């Protein structure tokens, strides 16, 4: 009985030791160590505005925006993005056309115009900055680990 009690008493210390060891291994995502010291704020990274399209990281990733979108108005009055990326205006603007999937409602019915649920572009499409990732990403694209039928192109 006494032995069991002693073991129970020691349990929290053991658990804390284990989690402590884990915490050392895990990368710190927030704040300095110890947490109550104040670290200088890192500089705000500038936007990437080179107009060059980026490879998608996975097939259904919403393409990122390679240009400045400061002050772009997207509200019930006007959608600035559509003034270049809309189907009608891509010839004039030479901008990539918004996908045909954006003209369907969620039941797959084709609509005459952009689906209201797709209207707020920046809900999915975002600009990028030059900031370095906090944590190294080991994600590998499907293409890197398989060979699809037909060789995959």
């Amino acid at each position, binding site marked *: 009985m006494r032995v069991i009690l002693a073991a129970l008493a020691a349990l929290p210390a053991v658990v804390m030791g284990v989690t402590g060891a884990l915490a050392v291994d895990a990368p710190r995502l927030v704040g300095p160590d110890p947490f109550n010291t104040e670290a200088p704020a890192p500089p705000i990274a500038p936007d990437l505005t080179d107009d060059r399209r980026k490879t998608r990281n996975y097939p259904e990733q919403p393409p990122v925006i390679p240009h400045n979108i400061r002050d772009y108005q997207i509200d*019930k*009055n*006007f959608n600035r993005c559509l003034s270049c990326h809309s189907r009608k205006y891509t010839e004039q603007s030479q*901008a990539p056309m918004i996908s045909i999937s954006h003209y369907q409602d969620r039941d797959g019915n084709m609509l005459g115009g952009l689906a209201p649920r797709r209207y707020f572009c920046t809900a999915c499409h975002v600009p990028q900055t030059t900031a370095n990732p906090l944590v190294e990403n080991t994600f590998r694209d499907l293409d890197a680990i398989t060979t699809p039928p037909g060789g995959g192109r």
Partner: protein
Amino acid sequence: MALKDSLRTAWQTFSRPAAYFSLGFLTLGGFLAGVMFWGGFNTILEATNKEAFCISCHEMQSNPYEEMKQTIHFTNRSGVRATCPDCHVPHNWTDKIARKMQASKEVWGHIFGSIDTREKFVEMRRTLAEHEWARLKANNSLECRNCHSAESMDITKQGARAAQAHERYLFSGQMTCIDCHKGIAHRLPDMTGVAHWQPTEASGQQ
């Protein structure tokens, strides 16, 4: 005798109405009054041509001014900013006076509260915006060009999209600044039917 004569001459000079002083006073007084009135006029003209005057009315303070604060014409990397009159009042004197006379309508609007709530302002936004678009279109975007000159614009420093658009439309004289750069300092109204601009074309909204 000589003393008596000179006294009489002096007396006559003093006792008769002055023939030259009045002219002198008129000239000098006119000059001073001119300085005062013209100087005062210009001082007041300049005072009404300051942002502090524009936003002393709450309509301007809480609508266009608040919206402008977000934009690049208010806050940017170099700290140079445009104030209301830089874009909305012509800098050239004659045009300025003409615009000031038109602005008496705005005093009327203020007194009778035509845009004294946010709802009224939003309701009138298209009309108000159209006035400014028409004005800038008519003077070939003069107020834009007071700072942004096409001659000094180095399009090699611009993004590819901007460079192409400026080369094609601005340098060729086909379009003027305001044709494309609407809503750069304030929010846009519903743009349905505006030339060179597109309606939102979202389904269900026409």
